[in-house]
């Protein structure tokens, strides 16, 4: 009797697995993706740059200043703040801007870079720290890193300013 019930259950399970397979491309995949998004799972801030703290509007473009990113204990990246200039297509050829990173009303860094006409070309620029909390750097400089860069990503120019604090 037990064997018979087990057999029935096994075939029911097999039928369910077939239903799962058949509904995957039509229902399950989209539902699952949306469910994952609602869990609050997010891409590591070292890649995404973290959440936007505030937006500064300039003439023809805007600057999104993100919250500082403090990498996890053994992660091989220095802490940084990401600022995003967008849309890149509306930026002047030479950008020179002073940006308040910590929201105290004082400029913390002076960012300057040249926007090449080729969107795939590397950006040359410089960040000068006006506040001891941040580090100055120039690109192209040494090895590009997640915490110290001026780079174009889609229609945005991303600048990551390293924090002058030990990791």
């Amino acid at each position, binding site marked *: 009797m037990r*064997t018979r019930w*087990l*057999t029935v*259950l*096994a*075939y029911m*399970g*097999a039928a369910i*697995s*077939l239903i*799962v*397979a*058949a509904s*995957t*491309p039509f229902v*399950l*995949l989209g539902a*699952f*993706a*949306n469910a*994952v*998004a609602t*869990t*609050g*799972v*997010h*891409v*590591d*801030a*070292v*890649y*995404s*740059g973290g959440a936007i703290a505030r937006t500064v509007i300039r003439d023809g473009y805007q600057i999104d200043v993100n919250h500082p990113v403090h*990498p*996890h*204990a*053994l*992660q*091989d990246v220095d802490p940084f703040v990401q600022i995003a200039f967008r849309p890149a297509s509306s930026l002047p050829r030479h950008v020179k801007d002073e940006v308040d990173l910590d929201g105290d009303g004082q400029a913390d860094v002076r960012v300057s870079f040249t926007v090449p006409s080729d969107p*795939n070309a590397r950006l040359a620029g410089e960040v000068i720290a006006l506040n001891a909390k941040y580090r100055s750097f120039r690109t192209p400089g040494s*090895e*590009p*890193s*997640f915490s110290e*860069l001026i*780079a*174009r*990503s*889609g229609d945005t120019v*991303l600048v990551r300013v390293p924090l002058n604090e030990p990791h």
Partner: protein
Amino acid sequence: MASAAIPRPRRRPPPFRTVSRSLLLTSPIALWALLMFTPVFRSPGRNAHLGAVVVILFMTTLFFLMMRTGKTYRWRRCFFVALGFLFPVGFIASLIHLRGSMSLSLEHMLGGDTPFCHMVIPMALIPAALTRTVIFPGSILPTATNPHSIAIMLGLWLAFTLVLGKAWCSYACFFGGIEEGFAAMPKHIRIRKIDPRLRLVPWALLIAVAVLSAALFEPVYCRWLCPFKTVTEFQRVTSVQTAMQMAIFVSLFIGLVVVLPFLTKKRTQCGFFCPFGAFQSLFNRINLFEIRFDRDKCVDCTLCRTSCPTMALSAESIREGRTLLNCMKCGACVDSCKKNAAVWHLKGTPVAVKPERARLLFLYGAWGLATMLGGSILENSLATLIGFLPLR
């Protein structure tokens, strides 16, 4: 006496099923394939249409042959090797189209443009569970520049895993076909003796990369050990470290994916290295389908053990009538068994009673999902290849 010395002509075994019955059993897969590629036909693009037609015919014909001959491994291998060799073609072409290069720059990582690969899953689980953070430079939901988002690929993996367990490694993994192709090339095995303890290496690697990835907050295997970076995408070589990584990828690819499969006729990377494969083995415990051995019929000829591409059989496991946990349900042992002792089995049902029914139930799920994922990869790659042809 004289007549006994004359070799009798070998008679071909009768087909497993009649043509009409095989066609009938193939019809759901044919319909499914048509359904899967309907969106391709709705959008413009002659190359894509041609690719879709070829893939529909290819997948349907292979399934028909499985039904007609009763054999699984040989026909599955045709699909799997085609997938393995064509996947890099389409993937590299799309990378060059989008980025102009196979190498992955920092800019692309920041933009979340990296397609998510299933290999990351075991490394990403612990950080995701503890901090809700994915340690991969992709995007959670699909974007215009990255349709292979984390959530979509995770959903596909979950569906395959529920339906197939470790059979992911023989019906879905777009890397495994490369070494299966190299393993199929030679007629004879050149290296026969393989230490069975090598089966433990993927488990050790799995534990190591899972712990290290959680500690360092980066997918360690992808960064340092993945042989398939050689034929997909890799971080742009800008330093000694990235050059070292590239050297490791290429060495592992040549050794584990090309040379050793050729010498051993085994899937050496899958069987003795891949941590994702070890992780996937765990899901064989919850999956309903498996291979079992009818001890009344088994004569311990070891044909099944020799044919197994990942050494998922041992003398003890066969004595117990089971495979080892790392069985990927490719069907090689079932097809090689001359006594019909190796059989497809649905857990909970009596062993060797209606094994063909278990095989059919398994194959419909496996081939359906293979047509959806592998088929779309094949179609994309074929469309790319057709684009290179001087056709008007």
